[in-house]
């Protein structure tokens, strides 16, 4: 159950290209499970910015009754406002939100993959996995050395830690996806947890499927409310029943079984999704086979006109 609280800023610190903000928010900290996120109202009480800002939680601690830390990049007016907060400032916070990372029942060899500050939520997960007797290998990437979050912690705490950067300023030169297969083979990975931009998650899903390894992906899509009201953060996901639905990342995710996400169809309404114009597609009902298995491609058939609703 999420709560809405007036949280107090404990610290805002610079971490290379990013910022880490720690809030005193006991009610959120005690409810948190790795993979969940919080939302904040930005800009103060008279703000002109109505969308809340969502952040994956990096870590919770028990000091000050319970603190919540997240990592972000000051990219726009909302995140710049957050970066300018000082200790003891108040901020409206809601959390913890969303579906957490499921953890394996039996001790497993887990690979935790993160890109940029997307790796922040992996460290709380790593701690939980180790508690369960799992081994943890890290594969972290970013544009440059200052855009790989947590490389040091990964090296210190992981069974192995592989770092790649686009410019080669830290670790190997390349992308996480170029190293993924090698890491999977060397670590004999049994399950992958990934937090990265959608194109990377899509590629990770394809690569892991070659080794028949399940991937739990935390998607990074823009949200405005974070609690399921605004229907802004939607993506097409196939259920275990084989039926595709347009679901909300905030309440149905943000962690999804990656093989069920229709990565290529994000930003479209696949015509075989529940409620798409012309749905249900002929033969899709009652044949016990998922539309995806039959090679149905997403998107609107050419020539089919659709009226867009505003509202």
């Amino acid at each position, binding site marked *: 159950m999420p709560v809405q609280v007036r949280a107090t800023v404990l610290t805002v610190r610079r971490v290379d290209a990013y910022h880490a903000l720690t809030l005193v928010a006991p009610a959120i900290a005690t409810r948190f499970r790795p993979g969940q996120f919080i939302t904040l109202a930005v800009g103060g009480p008279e703000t002109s910015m*109505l969308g*809340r800002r969502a952040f994956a939680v990096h870590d919770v601690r028990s000091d000050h009754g319970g603190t919540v830390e997240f990592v972000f990049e000051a990219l726009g007016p909302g995140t710049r406002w957050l970066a300018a907060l000082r200790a003891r400032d108040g901020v409206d916070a809601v959390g913890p939100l969303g579906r957490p990372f499921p953890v394996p029942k039996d001790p497993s060899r887990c690979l935790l993959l993160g890109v940029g500050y997307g790796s922040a939520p992996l460290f709380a997960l790593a701690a939980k996995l180790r508690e369960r007797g799992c081994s943890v290998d890290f594969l972290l990437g970013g544009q440059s050395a200052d855009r790989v979050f947590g490389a040091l912690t990964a090296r210190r705490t992981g069974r192995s830690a592989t770092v790649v950067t686009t410019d080669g300023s830290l670790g190997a030169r390349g992308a996480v996806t170029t190293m993924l297969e090698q890491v999977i083979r060397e670590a004999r990975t049994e399950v992958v947890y990934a937090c990265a931009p959608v194109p990377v998650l899509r590629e990770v899903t394809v690569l892991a499927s070659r080794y028949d390894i399940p991937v739990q992906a935390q998607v990074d899509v823009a949200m405005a409310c974070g*609690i399921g009201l605004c229907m802004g953060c939607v993506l097409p996901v196939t259920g275990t029943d084989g039926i595709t639905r347009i679901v909300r990342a905030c309440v149905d995710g943000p962690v999804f079984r990656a093989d069920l996400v229709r990565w290529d169809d994000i*930003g479209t309404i696949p015509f075989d999704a529940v*409620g798409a114009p012309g749905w249900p597609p002929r033969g899709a009902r009652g044949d016990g086979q998922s539309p995806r298995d039959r090679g149905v491609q997403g998107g609107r058939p050419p020539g089919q006109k659709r009226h867009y609703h*505003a509202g």
Partner: protein
Amino acid sequence: MRVRLGQVDLPNPVLAAAGCAGAGRELAHFNDISRIGAVVSKSIMTEPWTGNPAPRLAETPSGLLNSVGLQGPGIDVFLQRDLPWLLSRGARVVVSIAGQTAREYGVLASRLADAAGVSAVEINLSCPNAEDAGRPFALDPGTAGTVVAAVRGSLRYDIPVFAKLSPDVTDIVAVAGACVASGTDGLSLINVLLGMAIDPGTMRPALAGACGGLSGPAIRPVAVRCVWQVREAFPDVPIIGTGGVRTGRDALELLLAGASVIGVGTALIHDPSACPRVLRELEEELAAIGVGRVADIIGQAHGGIPHGLPGRREGQKM
């Protein structure tokens, strides 16, 4: 703070507006929804509907631009799952309905006529009319009136109907008049304004559907104007005033313009406990001016109180 809206008694005049309260469950984590004046459902259609592709939302100054496109589960799921849940939590439910033809609105109304516990029906007229090349019903007085007649004719007499109008017309009083003539019990003012945002970074529209509906405090003056004009023309028709309400003072403004109750919409996206907060602030505003009953303030901007009250504005020198 009890108010009367048509034939319906509500414990207070602050409603959660259509499309911003989810199915009610989402808000219930943060509010006791039985203490919200009424929960207006997301617009319900006859069938499940996917809505529009993402991105669907863009933030604009004091506003949100959306092209969600009425994603929803359809009337069957609403009646089986969402409505009973809302009623079990003690909520009063106003059901917003949306169709692609006047006939579909009629079908939805007859389904609701058989359902127990519906306080009122709000007709979302800002939907593309499939029989008029996708032109929204709300843009034409005749078409809007046809939909109202179809709904009114299919619904029990004891369930009031509120036609929700679009501000994107040259003469909202004409559309309101057509709806009143067709038997609507009240009006809901206003729906979103059509707007657009372009991302200079990508050089493309910010929304997949290019254009979208603008809501939030940015449109509040438009809502005040529409409520004012319609109240002026039809002083006896109850109005649900919606459009950019974020504080109790904003709510008071719409009541003064002539709304009987007010809807809180986009403010819920920003603050999930906006409804109880706006109600508390409104109570404080009314107490400060010595008004005990909401009914005593409705439409007072039209000259009820001679010369108004002495007031001071920020920026005045003395």
